[in-house]
Each structure stands twice: as C-alpha cells, then as structure tokens.
C-alpha cells in the first residue's frame, strides 16, 4: 500500500506543480520602422513679417449624413463650365464626384462631397501658386517698364521742342524728310511740331541765318547720339508689353479658376444647407469672410495683427526672468525689480500680445455681398478663448467664434513655408449647436508676407 501511495504521489506532485504559475511568454509583435522616412523638420517661420490683412478667407462645414438623407445635387448648365474648368486642372478630376443622386447612401454622399470640396480647394491653391508666379513675373515686367521709362526720360534731351517747329511746304513722299524752315513764310506755311528726337531727325531744315543753323544742328547732333539707345529701349518696352500680355493671358484663367472653385463649392453647400433647413435642422455649411480677395461691401476687411517675433522674445524673456528670480543669491531689491519686469511680461503675454483679431463673416444662405457681414473679434467678444500656442512645428491659433445660434471651435496651424501662399492659418473647425450636434469643417486664413509685397 505504501508503495502504491508513493507511486500516486510521484505522479501527482509534478503534475500539480506543472499546472501552477504558468505565465504567457512576453513576445513582442513584429515591428519595423522605415528608416528611409526622413525625420521631421520644424517649418520655417519668419516671425514678424505677416501682413495683417486677410488676403483670402475660407470657412465651411461638411453636412452630416443624418441631415442629408434624401438630398440630391445636380450640376446645372450655368455652373457646368465652372465644374469643368476646375476639375480639368486636377489629374484625378474624373474621380471627383460632381453629382450626388438621391439613391446614394448618405454616408457616401458626405464622403464624396468632402473629397470634392477638398479637391476643389487644391485646385484653387494650385491656381494661386501659379498666379503668384505670373504675378511676380508681371510685377517684374512692370518694374522694368518703369525703369525703361526712367531711362528714356533721362536720355531724352530737355528741349523746348516748340523752338524747333517745322514749317513745311508739302508733305514728303516715302522716306523723304520734311523740308522745313524755322520761321514761317508764304511758301512754308504748314506746321509740324516735333515731340522728340524721333521727329526732329525726320526734318531737313533750310536756314535763313547761321544762328538758327547752329541752334538746330546742336539738337540734331544730340538726337543722333541718343536715338539708337532710345530705339533699343522702345523695342525692349514693346517686347515687355507683349510679354506682360502673354503672362496676363495665363494669369487670367487662373483667376477664373479661383473664383469658379469658390462659386461651385458655395453652390453645392448652399444647396445642401437649403435642403437641411427645409428638413428642420439648423446646420450652417457656408460662411463668407471679407478679405482682400473678396471684400464685403461695407469697406471692411478681416484683419489679424500680431507680432510673432515680439511674442517669442517676450516668452523667452519670461523664462529668463523666472530663472533669475529662482537664483537664491538675488537680493530682495533685485528680486523686486525682476518681479516687476516679469509681471509686465506676463500681462503682455496674457492680454496684450494680440493687437487685433477681427473677422468679418456672413454665415448661411443667401449671400448678400457682405451687407450682413458681422464682425467677430476679440474686442467685441465674438472671438473667445483665444490662445497663441507654439507647437513643435509651428505656432497655432486656438479660439472660438461665438454666434447667436452656435459656436465654432477653431484650431489653426500657422505656417509660412510656402512662398506663394505667404502666411497661412489652416485647420479643422467644429461647429457646436444647442441640440448637441457637431459638424466638422475647415478654415483657412491667408496673409501676404510683407517682404514679398
């Protein structure tokens, strides 16, 4: 029996031990990160050169599927050329939906509408980039034209051309010159007033006295000297005019793309908003902001005045002052002075760092051309909880736009790494309604870079 018990225990004890305290081996999941993906670099940010006037303003919201269940949209004859022109600028334009039939799933409608709006935005941005290049070229041409005008002005002798009026008998034929006299007589009665060297070199004077001859010959000699240069400058001027016209011919359609892009997005969203309103929902999808590109008719433009460099300097100063104040060797007098300075910096960073933040916006349907634009600013409380945040890669504006019917949460990254676009504040926005619904959207404020003006 003892032997039997021993056998049983020999089997049982290892099995019991085996069944206790087992833990799953910790095995990491396969991971491989692509070394070829370059590290991020902070966006270049040249502080303090942002023009305060908003050049272009975009604010829109995307419909929610539940608000557009039976919504449909068709492109009419009026807007078809705009759709065609805008989508033709995109290599994938044929993949962008322009029509939204009734029987399509609302989720898919929203997805395709957002993709279309984004694509049109790209087209507008691309158009702006090209416009910037052509605009730069046209400005350069214009500057050279002014220079040439100045050069011509400098070259042309300062002469009272009336003193060299040509009195002639008959009009010359072909390349013949005018046969002129300085004084009028019975035969040489007709008058031709020279306007410059070009004209005077086409005159052949007959002199009645040596004084006149000397006076005229001096001018003729001078003209013969400068005329080749003037001719060359005129030719260049002519060439520049042609170049300007050719450049403008490229610029003009792009300007059309910008406007057409805006109009078709507005039409799509206004149609959706009209349907949504008819269904009894309060959602707003379109907003028009007054900007240099599209000013309202109240003669006011949206404006953001902010000195990034000063803010950065003050923020650094604040850190430095805090370091000094923490130094135990600082005596009470020095500490009091540092604290006074520190408090002033803190106050500036809290309330004084944004000189102006004023957006003129008209929300909703039936765009009035700006007559119903309202100002939303930090000063009047239309913009609240404004924060300028310096993230790792760029500064950002965080704020709320508060209207009577809803409020909009805005988080916009500020960059100026794209020469053509200048300064941009771009980001997602969320409109919050009293019924708890939230709609996603996008906002973009564009500014010129002052040095590029």
């Amino acid at each position: 029996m003892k032997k039997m018990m021993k056998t049983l225990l020999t089997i049982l004890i290892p099995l019991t031990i085996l069944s206790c305290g087992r833990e799953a081996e910790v095995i990491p999941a396969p991971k491989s990160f692509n070394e070829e993906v370059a590290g991020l670099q902070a966006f270049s940010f040249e502080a303090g050169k942002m023009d305060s006037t908003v050049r272009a303003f975009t604010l829109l919201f995307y419909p929610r599927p539940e608000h557009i269940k039976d919504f449909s949209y068709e492109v009419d004859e009026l807007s078809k050329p705009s759709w065609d022109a805008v989508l033709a600028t995109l290599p994938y334009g044929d993949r962008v939906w322009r029509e939204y039939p009734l029987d399509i799933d609302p989720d898919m409608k929203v997805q395709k509408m957002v993709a279309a709006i984004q694509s049109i935005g790209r087209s507008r941005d691309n158009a702006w980039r090209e416009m910037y290049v052509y605009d730069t070229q046209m400005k350069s041409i214009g500057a050279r034209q002014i220079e040439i005008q100045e050069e011509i002005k400098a070259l042309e002798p300062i002469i009272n051309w009336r003193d060299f009026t040509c009195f002639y008998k008959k009009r010359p034929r072909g390349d013949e010159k005018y046969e002129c006299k300085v004084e009028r007589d019975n035969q040489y009665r007709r008058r031709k007033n020279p306007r410059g060297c070009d004209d005077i070199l086409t005159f052949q004077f007959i002199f009645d006295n040596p004084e006149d001859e000397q006076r005229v010959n001096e001018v003729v000699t001078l003209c013969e000297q400068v005329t080749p240069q003037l001719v060359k400058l005129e030719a260049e001027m002519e060439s520049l005019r042609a170049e300007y016209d050719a450049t403008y011919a490229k610029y003009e359609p792009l300007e059309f793309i910008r406007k057409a892009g805006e109009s078709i997005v507005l039409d799509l969203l206004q149609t959706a908003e009209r349907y949504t309103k008819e269904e009894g929902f309060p959602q707003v999808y379109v907003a028009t902001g007054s900007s240099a590109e599209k000013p309202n008719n109240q003669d006011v433009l949206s404006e953001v005045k902010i000195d990034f460099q000063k803010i950065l300097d003050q923020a650094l100063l604040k850190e430095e002052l805090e370091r000094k104040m923490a130094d135990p060797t600082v005596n009470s007098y020095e500490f009091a002075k540092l604290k006074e300075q520190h408090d002033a910096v803190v106050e500036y960073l809290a309330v004084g760092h944004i000189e102006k933040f004023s957006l003129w916006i008209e929300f909703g349907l039936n765009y009035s051309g700006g007559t119903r634009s309202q100002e939303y600013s930090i000063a009047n409380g239309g913009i609240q909880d404004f924060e300028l945040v310096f993230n790792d890669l760029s500064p950002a504006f965080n704020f709320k736009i508060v209207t009577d019917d809803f409020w909009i949460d805005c988080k916009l990254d500020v960059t100026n790494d794209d020469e053509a676009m200048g300064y941009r504040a771009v980001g997602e926005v969320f409109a919050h309604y009293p019924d708890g619904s939230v709609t996603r959207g996008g906002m973009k404020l564009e500014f010129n870079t002052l040095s590029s003006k």
Partner: protein
Amino acid sequence: MKKLILVAGFLMGVPLWANPIQTPFVLPTARVLPKGVRNLSYKGALIDASRKFNESGQNVTIAEPFFQPLSFGKIMEGEQDPAKRGLIEDTMNALGADPNDSFGQTTGQVNVKVNAHVPVLAWGLTKKLTVAAVVPIVKSSLNVDAGVQQQNAALHQQMIGDIKAKGAPEKVVEFLDKMNHPVAEKMEEYGYQPLQNENKTELGDIRLISKYQVLSNEINRITLTGALTVPTGQDQDVNKAVDVISGDGQTDIAFGADYDYLLNENLTLTVGSLYTVQLPDTNAERIPFRVDSKLTPDIDPNTERNLGDIWMVAAATTFTYKGFVAAAGYNFQTRQRDEYDGDMFAPNRYHWLAEDTKQKMHTALASLGYNTIHLFRQKKFPIPLGVSLTHTQVFAGENVVNDALTALDLSIFF
C-alpha cells in the same frame, strides 16, 4: 481588426460546454455514482492559445485580426466619420494612389496560457440519480502586443509632403503617430483600454448537473443529463479589445443522453450527445460600423443578444484492467450563429456583431488513468482514489482555438 475574445471557461466531468465552444477534455460516459457515494475531484486543465481555425477552417494565428494592410482603403474603412473618409480619399487621389496602395501592415502577437482549476463535488442521491456542482477557477496569463511594418517609404514621403503643402504641420505629427502606432492610436480613438499583458484569476461560470440512469444491465447503460450554467464568471470587458473571459454572462440550460455498450467487463463503447440552450439576455456590446471589423467606438449598453445554441456528439471506447483505465474518443461540437439586436444603431450593424460566431470543432481525445477502487474493495487500499491524464487534439474546425489541451483529474470517493 476583429475583436478577440478568448474564453477560458473550462469545465468538468460530463461535457459541460459554455460559450463559445470549448476544447473538451472529458470522454462521454453513462455511469452514475452509487447511492450515497460522493465524489470530490479536482480537474486541472492546461491550455495554450496561440492558433485557431478561422471562418474558412484554415489554421492561423489567433493574432490574425491584427495583421491588416495599412492601405488607403483600409484606413478609410476604419474611419467612422464619412467626412474624415472624404479627406483621406482626396489625399489618396492627389497622390495618384488607389485604395490598395499601402504604407505597410499592422502586426500583432497574442499568446495565452490558461490553467483551469475545477473542483467538482458529485453525489449519488439515489441508485439512478447523481447530482454535481462544478466551480471552475480560471487562472489566465495574456501576452498581447501590436506592431507595424512600414513598407513604402516613397508613399510616406509623398503623404508628408502633401500634408505640409496643405499648411497643417501638426497633422504631419498626427499622421506619423498613426503610422508608427496604428493599433494603439485607433484603440485610443475608439475609447478602448491600451493593450497590455495581464495575469488574473477569476471564478468561472458555476454549473449544476444531474444525471439520471434510465437503463442499466450487463450490456447497456443509458443516462439522461440535465445541466444549468449560472453566470458567475466574468464576461468580456467592453473596453478591452483582447480579453480572456471566464464566463459569458448569461444562463445556459443543457440536456442530453449517454449510452454505454459494455462489450465485456474490460471494454466499453460509449456514445453521447448534449444540446445546450443559451438563453437570451441583454448585455453591453460594442456595435460595429463595418461588416469586417468589430473595433468600434459605439457602445449599446442594452444590446439584446441570443448566443447560438450548442450541440455536441461524442464517441469513446474505454478499456479498464485492475484499476488502469485507457480511453480514446472523438468529439464534435457545433454552435449556431449568435443574434444581436438593439435600438441605438441601425439594425444591420447589430447583425455584423454576429459575424464569425458560428463555430465547429472536431477533436480527438486520449486518456490514461489509474484508480484504487478495486484495491479499496479488496481492502488493500484505505481510500478509493483516481488519477487520470487526458490529452485533446483539435484537428479541424471553424472559429475555434486549435491548440492542444492537457488535463489532469484527481478524484476521491467517500
């Protein structure tokens, strides 16, 4: 990614299957305890979970749902907000890509070790009726990790360039975070707890069983079985994407029969069957927004569910000689598809919850054991004891873990 729920409700004695179907480690028998005899036994099962048979019956890792391409198409499908899908579609178009173009793929690792400690008390109330109570204690250890393999550097760079061109640098940071930790980012977005290794010990679903012998002679034995499963175990945590559970949170009733054919005093052939009805209830569930993924941010705390009923058939042959017991058998289980319904979301979304819940399992079992009953009867041993070791191999199935299982059974009769 499909949600992984690993059930560790290992039960005892007569087959007592819970939801979803379990790897069996008991062969059928029509035996009952003699009147007045009680049996206290301890059953310890060791199981690893690392592989499974999928919906098509293929043998795959249980971390399979983690392995997903990071393609534009999949990324779009993973976004519930159609506006966000629209933003991604526009980027895809602008890069000249299509839905199959991929940045790489997500990866994962899941391995589980479970020890089920199952004390069982059985009592022969009459000559024909035996009742038993089963109180499983489930000790589990979970290792889970998610990773990513990036494969298309050019597409990464194009994507970063495109976001920068849009003037949204912080979105570049967001994109890189999502690419470097796609699973963790998505789970955080949906409100799941972060994936983490976990060791825990929990009470499983308690089962009450009765076996009634309707026929017993020298050649035949027939026993009817009835069982009730009480939801004392821990159901899935709705905030965990990978969870080892010790119960399913609802009540089951089961009924069945076993038949022994005694070829001679040493050899018995047995067939048995058990049908388990899983009663409907309401439960908090995450409601998918896509048919092929159960990861979702939407929770319906009052989801009506009716877990699929389970039917089992088994056959075994048992050889006994002087206390030594050798047995081998086959077991087949099938579970019907679950049903879900609710009012918070579209009806089809509840139906998607039932995807991949239909299960099948074919197993082969072999058991070796020894008991002192004959010695006890001969008064050569003071107490009637028994010990056995059972090994189960899962050789085919659908939507079931297929790792082998080993179980130890110690019994004492008094």
